[in-house]
């Protein structure tokens, strides 16, 4: 069953084309990674999927009655805001239908604690968010996005500014959610594309979709405009098949 259908979407800023004729569909429960260079339109595509930008041409359908769970980059919110971890997670349960003088109910609080436990941040529930490390902050944002139990989860560069250990943990968490949720992970870093994913889309204004989750060297070169040397540290992150013997070995 398709959960997301994007057909012939184009977006431009003035004369600059950010997205051109982008079409793809995502199966329910799939784990898709979108990769591409900076300025390639990844953020624009997310904004279209989230309804923040209306495309000039084309259409978008998300077959879900719940809002998309969104894990933004760190620069999109106020990191120094005086608030505790638990309160940030609770914000994920807000909606336009909240009554006047709304207060979080016990069910919301239980759900928040359940999610913080799932992500291993329950001990931090009373901590100010300004005191968190990058990896901890990322888990808080994932917990917040999961509050409404969304069908679709979109993560914008979730592993860009965190340490390797947190990175592995976050991929582990996403792997647990896979199947139950449709996950879209945006990355500019080819090396972080893990072996968990079902499909990869390469985006550089236009989009190339790889259903089997494998990308070829020629398509990467096409997307990035020049040959890219891919170094896969550790087996789970391998992008290409093993190089033939006698070649350069970077692992």
């Amino acid at each position: 069953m398709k959960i997301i259908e994007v057909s012939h979407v184009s977006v431009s800023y003035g004369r600059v084309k950010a997205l051109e004729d982008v079409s793809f569909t995502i199966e329910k429960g799939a784990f898709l990674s979108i990769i591409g260079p900076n300025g390639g339109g990844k953020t624009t595509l997310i904004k279209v999927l989230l309804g923040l930008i209306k495309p000039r041409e084309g259409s978008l359908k998300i077959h879900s009655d719940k809002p998309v769970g969104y894990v933004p980059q760190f620069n999109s919110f106020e990191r120094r805001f005086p608030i505790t971890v638990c309160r940030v997670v609770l914000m994920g349960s807000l909606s336009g239908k909240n009554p006047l003088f709304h207060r979080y109910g016990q069910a919301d609080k239980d759900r928040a604690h359940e999610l913080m436990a799932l992500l291993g941040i329950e001990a931090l529930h009373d901590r100010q968010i300004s005191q968190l490390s990058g990896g901890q902050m990322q888990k808080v944002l994932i917990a917040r996005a999961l509050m409404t139990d969304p069908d679709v989860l979109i993560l914008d560069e979730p592993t860009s500014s965190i340490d390797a250990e947190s990175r592995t943990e976050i991929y582990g968490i996403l792997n647990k959610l896979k199947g139950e949720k449709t996950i879209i992970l945006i990355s500019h870093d080819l090396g972080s594309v893990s072996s968990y994913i079902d499909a990869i889309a390469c985006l550089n204004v236009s989009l190339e979709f790889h259903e089997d989750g494998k990308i070829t060297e020629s398509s990467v070169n096409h997307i990035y405009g020049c040959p890219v040397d891919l170094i896969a540290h550790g087996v789970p992150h391998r992008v290409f098949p093993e190089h033939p013997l006698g070649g350069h070995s970077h692992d």
Partner: protein
Amino acid sequence: MINAIASYQFMQNALWGAVLASILTGIIGAIIVEKKWLMLSSGIAHSSFGGIGLGYMLGFEPIYGAFLFTTVAAMLVPTIDRKSDTGSENLTAMLWSFGMALGILFIAFTPGYPPDMNSYLFGNILTISKANLNVMILVTTLVLGVLLSFYNIWKAYLFDGEFTFIMGIKTLWMDYVLYFLIAISIVALIKLVGIILIMALLTIPPSISRFYARSFSRLILSSMGLGLLFSLMGLVVSYYYSIPSGASIILISVLAYGLALVAKKIIARR
């Protein structure tokens, strides 16, 4: 001084004015410091000069003119900002200087002696009338009502507006409501404390409170408390040394910020 408060109506009004101004600047200040809308608020405040000048020229209450100009400026900046790539900072600066230029132009056209514009820049808390206080009470009640009735949503909006929008909340409306509340708060405060002191009261108490506040509500409450403390100390100094109250309140606030900063560094080092 206690005797003076008991026997002079103007001293009582000044006291109530300080209390109301602290409540209002505590709330609005915490919001604009978090949103980093200081430039915008300052621009809105200064654009009121055009309205004040218009009032003098046409012979109606200048504060109504101020209300008109600040509200229009507050609505124009975000609207033009979304439709052009000029940037809200540039638009704000443009409206700021445009409002003040109009004010000066209108005053030049006003027959007779030019009015004293200084009182709108620095205000005079000792000349507050009952009517001023009533306007303050009205605006403070409105701001408190709007904030408290959607408190959780306001907090989410201030923390992460984009996420709040995705949750299905109409954040564009919240933008406009907030701009409007800032505009009317500034107008209500102009007569009391003046444009310059408004900026000081909006920024200094929240900046100090951020050093230790652990929640947004505590940030607001602490800003209110500090605003009141500085205003009262300023009034006392102004009363005993016969110096302008606006200046003494600002000087005390800045001094307190400096002390708080040093104290924070010392505590952090230990």
